[in-house]
């Protein structure tokens, strides 16, 4: 495939020699390029189809400015469209200042990066003057509690856990520990689960009901393919989560799943995880993600981090 949508479009328009404007003929070919680019970036095919139709409408209506080529013009339209879908502005974590303790709960598929994210978030909140506690409500995965404890030690944040294989008991105990220990934010880590695992989904729903978290975050691997949409939708139907955390963005996946999820469940992406270390967390920038999906680099946010 090609690496960069704008190069590809330039090529397309160059082949259609003498076509300095956007018209019905060249737009058709350009749209096919755009759709393939989106599919190659793992954007859900239905979302890609709808997007391409919208972009087509917008492009045709646009009178091309003299100083830019039709290809550049279309790239701009595509980029703006993606950014808008992705939510435009960054949406912060929404913890009510007066509620003590505020509660954050995470959920997601196995291995998506939930436990690591919990530690990263705790560290971040601590830096912002909060006094968090981590709760190990993954009572199934071998050494899940140990993992959270090790991370808690690294960032000097206490971890609450129970001996029994009872996620509810861990969560409620953690809440209690927060109250008695004057903690102002409780972060509840949960086990990875498949959306088709009825018992495990019911457990997550029960946890949500009892805890009434202020932020229930769906953690998703940015390398996910077409299945991301179904997964996100199923978790959202069941848990009505508040936001999304996109992980492993230090990799080279285009991350089109982010776009599909955002489009289909209409929940904001709040954070991006960009590494294995406890500091590797960043707020989510829709515009940069749009550029990344289009293969136009996402250097800025990594440069800023360093």
């Amino acid at each position, binding site marked *: 495939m090609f690496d960069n949508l704008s190069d590809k479009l330039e090529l397309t328009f160059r082949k259609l020699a003498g076509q300095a404007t956007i018209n019905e003929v060249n737009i058709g070919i350009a749209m096919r390029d755009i759709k393939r680019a989106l599919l190659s970036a793992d954007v859900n095919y*239905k979302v890609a189809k709808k997007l391409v139709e919208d972009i087509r409408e917008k492009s045709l209506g646009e009178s091309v400015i003299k100083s830019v080529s039709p290809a550049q013009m279309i790239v701009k339209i595509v980029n703006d469209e993606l950014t808008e879908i992705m939510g435009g502005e960054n949406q912060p974590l929404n913890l009510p200042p007066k509620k003590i303790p505020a509660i954050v709960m995470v959920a997601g598929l196995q291995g998506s990066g939930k436990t690591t994210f919990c530690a990263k978030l705790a560290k971040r909140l601590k830096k912002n003057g909060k006094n968090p506690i981590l709760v190990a409500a993954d009572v199934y995965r071998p050494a899940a509690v140990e*993992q959270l404890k090790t991370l808690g030690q690294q960032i000097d944040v206490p971890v609450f856990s129970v001996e029994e294989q009872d996620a509810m008991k861990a969560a409620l105990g953690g809440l209690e520990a927060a109250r008695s220990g004057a903690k102002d934010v409780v972060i509840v880590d949960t086990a990875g689960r498949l959306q088709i695992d009825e018992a495990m989904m019911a457990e997550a729903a029960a946890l949500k009901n009892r805890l009434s978290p202020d932020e229930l975050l769906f953690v998703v691997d940015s390398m996910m393919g077409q299945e991301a949409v179904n997964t996100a939708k199923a978790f959202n139907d069941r848990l009505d989560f508040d936001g999304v955390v996109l992980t492993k963005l230090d990799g080279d996946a285009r991350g089109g799943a982010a776009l599909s999820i955002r489009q289909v469940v209409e929940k904001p992406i709040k954070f991006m995880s960009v590494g294995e270390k406890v500091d590797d967390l960043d707020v989510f920038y829709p515009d940069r993600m749009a550029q990344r999906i289009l293969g136009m680099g996402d250097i800025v946010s990594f440069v800023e981090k360093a």
Partner: protein
Amino acid sequence: TKTRDTLKEKLAFVSKGKTEVDDEFLEELENILVAADVGVETTLDIVDAITERSKGKTYRSEEELNAMVMEEIRKLLVESSHDHPVDFDAPLSAKPYVIMIVGVNGAGKTTSVAKLAHNYDKAGKKVVIAAADTFRAAAYEQLKIWADRAGVPIIGQGQGADPASVVFDSVSSAVSKGTDVVLVDTAGRLHNKSHLMEELAKIMRVAKKKIPEAPHEVLLVLDGTTGQNAVQQAREFTKFVNVTGLVVTKLDGTSKGGIVLSISRELNLPVKYIGVGEKIDDLQLFDRGSFVEALLEKENGKAEG
């Protein structure tokens, strides 16, 4: 009425009322295959093959059209196969036989190591596990629990130790104790991080110091929900270590793992095992024919809308 849920049903539906391949048909076909994560390249190859074959042709019935489509799909997905699943009780080419497990973060490496240990142990082979993930929090503790469940010994040096040195220890111990299989669990690493990839190459070099042919197998573990990036993963890992096969995990979900078909076509890597759950016996030998059939029969998540 029953909706079009499986890939097969969807494909049959595209042919409905049609006796010719037109643009609309091809567009739908492309959508259906992409949705199964078959990969854009493979999808386009299939679409091209069908376009070519149907050029100027009219089929007698929609059934005949559908049969042609299914034949082409199976041809590309099944017959380009190089897989040769070997059962656990088959004799191994070396003793100790060293298998290194690699892959990106959270793919299912450690769980797969446990499952392999269990299977080799069940087949009467003497197994040792090398805990060469010395980086992730509680990686050793996790592996230790699994080793106990599988009833096999584990060799490790604790967090922060040099993974290559753990492997050297394990291989040495296996040589002296007459162990049949050494399973090396490595830390998750993204393929675009060259220093971490170099570390893998170093582990290989150190293993070779003890046994020149080691590792006899390098299994790349891929998460079945991964999309296009899986091809990139396979490409990069094969640059640093001689990957001999793939393990595709988490296929107990609704994901179809279609991307491995692209990988084995593009990189010529056989799929050896699939992971179908979180328990120790949730590992199966890969059988391409039934994998493709399962792909075709798998229901789509109801949520897709």
